[in-house]
């Protein structure tokens, strides 16, 4: 059963009584909240995600709840909780969904050390995964959104989970986090997209979450082989160009974008070098999404595009 198959009443009932478990392969998340806005946004963004039986095991137990007694009613704020422990600073009420998304990213990045966790978007086509590691503001999520709106499978727009044992990459196929100008850019790029109402004044500026494609969610359990690593950099008005990067420099850049490279020690080094060994490595500078898409498409063998 998918979350979208629940009536809004049933969804609300499960969410508010800690009985909602969403299968976000390779993890499952039990979510509790009494915020109607969160229920509405979950219904939009996670409609295609399977839900698990109420008594099923969940990897993470999270909640988004109002903060403090007075703050419940005067300019209310919400906080993200993991195992009933408040994490992060409280955020405005209308940041509830963003708070949950960022909180979930933190849960995975700081707990799931069976993977090398990289701050990267991951898309896949014809069995070849392209990793797009980049610091915030590089245009990673915008490019990721454009790629999945043009037929690439979404694995993640934020966290690449590299399994050192199998050399496969997992995603979770969760919503794409668009920020500031990229919200209008993607709306113009594909007017039919479904996204949450933009919320302003977050720590990342204005944020909207894009519904992940159904086909990607249905294949969320399927990992992919990393074949290409592309470091994107959006530069206004720049012509798109792809330049090769040496493997040693690529490893350094991946290590910088990894959340748990230091935690994994030698295992992290071996995971990064093994991944880079299997991939072509490039820097992509782009000012136009259409040009960038052509370049990323051209990474695939010609018969596959």
């Amino acid at each position, binding site marked *: 059963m998918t979350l979208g198959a629940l009536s809004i009443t049933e969804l609300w009932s499960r969410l508010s009584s800690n009985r909602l478990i969403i299968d976000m392969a390779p993890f499952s998340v039990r979510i509790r909240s009494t915020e109607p806005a969160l229920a509405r946004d979950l219904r939009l963004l996670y409609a295609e995600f399977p839900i698990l039986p109420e008594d099923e095991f969940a990897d993470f137990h999270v909640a988004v709840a109002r903060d403090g007694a007075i703050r419940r009613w005067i300019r209310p704020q919400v906080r993200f909780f993991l195992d009933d422990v408040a994490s992060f600073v409280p955020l405005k009420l209308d940041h509830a969904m963003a708070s949950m998304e960022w909180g979930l990213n933190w849960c995975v990045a700081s707990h799931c050390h069976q993977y090398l966790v990289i701050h990267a978007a991951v898309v896949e086509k014809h069995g070849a995964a392209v990793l797009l590691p980049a610091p915030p503001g590089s245009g990673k999520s915008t490019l990721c959104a454009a790629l999945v709106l043009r037929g690439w499978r979404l694995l993640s727009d934020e966290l690449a989970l590299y399994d050192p044992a199998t050399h496969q990459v997992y995603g979770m196929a969760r919503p794409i986090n668009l920020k500031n100008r990229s919200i209008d850019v993607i709306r113009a790029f594909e007017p039919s997209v479904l996204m949450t109402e933009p919320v302003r004044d977050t720590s990342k500026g204005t944020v909207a979450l894009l519904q992940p494609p159904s086909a990607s969610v249905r294949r969320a359990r399927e990992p992919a082989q990393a074949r290409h690593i592309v470091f994107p950099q959006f530069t206004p008005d720049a012509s798109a160009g792809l330049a090769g990067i*040496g*493997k*040693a420099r690529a*490893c*350094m850049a991946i290590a910088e974008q990894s959340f748990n490279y230091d935690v994994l*020690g*030698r295992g992290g*080094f*071996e995971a990064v*070098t093994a991944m880079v060994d299997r991939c072509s490595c490039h820097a992509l500078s782009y000012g136009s999404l259409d040009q960038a898409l052509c370049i990323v498409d051209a990474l695939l063998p010609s018969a596959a595009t």
Partner: protein
Amino acid sequence: MAQGRGDWVIKRWPDEELVLCFAVLQRTTHLLDPLAAELLVRLEACPLTLDQLVADVGSDDAQTQGELFRNRVLEALAALQGIDLVGTVP
């Protein structure tokens, strides 16, 4: 005398000059030029003086002779000391 410090792993790729080095104890990763990587390997076995290192990594090639090359070795050694992969012993 210079001496290698701690455990490390080196990763090289064909057709690439730069070498990646992971210092296991320090949990740090570094890009090394080929000369620095060579020094690191030489110093793994036993401590060596600067003269011994120059003689070890040098060759008959004119580029690996003389004061200029000695200075390059000295710089590479200083770089390795700067990232704590090499220490000194009396």
